[in-house]
């Protein structure tokens, strides 16, 4: 029984995808590389998590607290109960990651992040197995379920590309673009994705350069994966044109998977706003809590070598102009 708090809303990221798409592997990977964030993962099956017993700091019927500050919570009593449980933690987690069941519609779960003022929409990532997805989409019983998952995605992780030929991977990617035109597709192996892709970049308004953060964040086993992503940081000292910023966010290139930053706008130069983008969706909201002064900063993440942020890109021009 808590009243709506006035503290920073906690982003909720939903990981969806059919059975065998790699959701549990992804969650395990995120828990390994969480380091700087206190993530609460809400999962269907505790048993499937690779939680080192020596790292467990506390355990209750529905939650396990880890030494690194992360929390695992079971969905066995329903999403509502699990959310009530994790919101009781003091201090609250920085981010919630909900593992949807293999047949649920991630869109329904993502709605939770938009309803409660204590929560925020942290985007929806849907995993698909490159070798199975097209057959599943034709399955008599679950075909419609799988297609519903695809259209719920901001980002689709085309996983297990090592199990198919390059040509097949390309064919599946094209097929995904057709079935889920709203989503941006990322190829991966063993569901290994950097935290900043799954949860969004941990951009801070203190001017720190986030460009090389993966170097130390992603464990060595995943180096091949982090090598395939890069970040770009846009920065300026003046206030941005709100109108141009909104237009530029609408026109973000497909190569940008996620973006986050804190900006000041010409419409209210004294106030900080938080900009977030995932896939084709973006939001511009008042920045909660106190933000130290400094530059407006926007961190963009995309597949390595694909984000060519030159003056032909609207968002770059917005920062240049200010």
């Amino acid at each position, binding site marked *: *029984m808590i*009243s709506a708090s006035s503290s920073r809303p906690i982003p909720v990221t939903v990981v969806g995808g059919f059975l065998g798409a790699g959701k549990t592997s992804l969650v395990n990977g995120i828990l390994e590389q969480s380091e700087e964030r206190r993530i609460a993962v809400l999962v269907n099956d505790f048993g499937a998590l690779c939680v080192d017993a020596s790292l467990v700091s506390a355990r209750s019927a529905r939650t396990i607290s880890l030494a690194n500050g992360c929390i695992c919570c079971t969905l066995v*009593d329903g999403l509502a109960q699990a959310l009530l449980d994790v*919101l009781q933690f003091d201090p609250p987690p920085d981010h919630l990651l909900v593992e949807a069941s293999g047949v649920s519609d991630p869109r329904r779960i993502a709605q*939770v992040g938009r309803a409660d003022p204590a929560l925020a929409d942290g985007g929806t990532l849907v995993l698909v197995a490159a070798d199975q997805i097209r057959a599943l989409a034709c399955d008599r019983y679950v075909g419609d*379920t799988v297609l519903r998952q695809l259209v719920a995605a901001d980002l689709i992780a085309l996983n297990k590309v090592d199990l198919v030929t390059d040509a097949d991977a390309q064919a599946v990617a094209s097929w995904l673009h057709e079935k889920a035109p709203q989503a941006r597709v990322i190829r991966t192996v063993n569901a290994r994705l950097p935290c900043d892709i799954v949860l969004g970049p941990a951009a801070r308004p203190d001017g720190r350069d986030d460009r090389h953060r993966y170097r130390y964040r992603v464990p060595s086993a995943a180096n091949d994966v982090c090598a395939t992503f890069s970040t770009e940081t846009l920065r300026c000292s003046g206030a941005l044109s709100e109108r141009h910023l909104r237009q530029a966010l609408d026109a973000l290139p497909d190569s940008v998977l996620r973006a986050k930053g804190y900006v000041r706008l010409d419409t209210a130069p004294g106030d900080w706003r938080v900009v977030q983008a995932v896939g084709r969706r973006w939001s511009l909201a008042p920045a909660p809590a106190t933000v130290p002064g400094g530059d407006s900063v926007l961190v963009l993440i995309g597949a390595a070598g694909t984000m060519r942020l030159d003056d032909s890109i609207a968002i770059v021009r917005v920062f240049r102009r200010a």
Partner: protein
Amino acid sequence: MPAPKPFLVYRARRVITLNPVQPSASAIAVRDGCILGVGEPSQLAGWGEHRLNDRYAECVLMPGLVEAHSHLLEGGMWEYPYVGFYPRNGPDGRHWPALHDIDAVVDRLREAEAQLEDPEAPLVAWGLDPILFGGRRMVAGDLDRVSTRRPIAVIHANFHVLNANSAMLARCGVRRDSEVEGIVREQNGEPTGELSEMAAMFPVFRVIGDPFARGRGERAAWNFARLALSAGVTTAIDITNDLTDASVGPLRKVCEREDFPLRLAAALFGNGLDPREGIERVRAREACNADRLRFGSVKLMTDGSIQSFTARVAWPGYYGGQPNGMWNIAPIQLEALVAAYHDAGLQLHIHTNGDEASGVALDALERALARNPRPDHRHTLQHAQMADAAQFRRMRALGVCVNLFANHLYYWGDVHRALTIGPDRAQRMNAAGTAQRLGVPYAMHSDAPITPIGPLFTAWCAVNRRTASGQVLGEGERIGVDDALRAITLGAAYTLRLDGEIGSIEVGKRADLAVLADDPLAIPAEALREVRVLGTMVGGVAFDAPPRVQSWE
């Protein structure tokens, strides 16, 4: 050898035994909580020294009724005032008359509000069914007439929707700019106060707690038992239990008490649980099975509900062209879970509302049985509301039982015919007639709290198949009163694997009785739901039902 203790002989107006060898009698003898004899008092005297007891001399005795699909949440919800469209009786026997418009709901909430001592406490009510208010939806302004200060939440009968007043919307932070589909809005974009599905309801749960957690604890169990007593029920199942200490501990405590008027069974909810752990949990509980508390079965849930359009329906789908419903577990997962629990020797209760879900469940059972035949498994399809004749033939061939949701015919029959699945398939819903003709072992249920616990009402539904508007839905699926009475006693006991102990009045069985003021076999079939329950006997202990008002129309 010590002389046997004297036993009691209860004379009755009539004893309906449900035992075909001796269908009717005028007295029963009870010793040590069990039926010693059935017959005429003079025959029973042959057992030796006894005492006559005439407390039931004017009553009709039946085997204690059995509810084989219910949730202890029914007991928990009575923490809150009831504001439903249909009349309902509370655990204290209080009759809550039907509320047929929003003004009536507001009046009842005002009464409840006046009784709350803590001025800050939220007011929660349940059972609202605005589908039946002729198109008028409740809005925050209606509830603001109850209080502008106190946060109010009214949970709908379907548990998928609630209404909040302005104070609640403000307290939980639901705003105009909240981008959530489940927030119903005025044309100007303001939330009306109606919040649909979990995401939109969650901010309210942050204020009032998760109402679905109310089924735990001794109080919920006691309330549930009192409701069961009022309905003549002596055995019921809590069909979606997690079997953790928090859930089972209170049940153990209440079931040890002789004044607790109910036998309970509890099935493990197996969705989302590793079956190895599930099997271990059931086995551990089973080892401590007691007279009044039984474990040993597992519930799996395949799909959603028809009225919420979340059931998985076979071609041609929903009547209005709505997209097909949602799986709770994928067919391939179901198959793996069914195999694991079947191989472990446990019994499965598989929730299937839509006919596609029933087909998938039967596929899974067929494979498990082909690989590992097991006599007398008693696996049961729960609800199977839309199952067609061919699926009933498969049940028969596989030895699968069915527990039909007959109450749906009354409560949602009109909606099913007009909106969900259309007039043709609505006729075959909850096909007790087909089950009877084909010899599929069947029971019927309330799914309390979805509908009130009351097997005699459930039997009335299966016998008459009348909807709330009075239409007959599928005359060909009607069954006779005698068959319906069997379904709510022996039939239900069979699906709980308790038919050797309860479900009929036979020598050696437990002295579990429903005590009735009217004879269900001597009144017109249309009047079956009006049969008055005076009390029960559980293991030879008599319980009086709280005085109860019946008012159906």
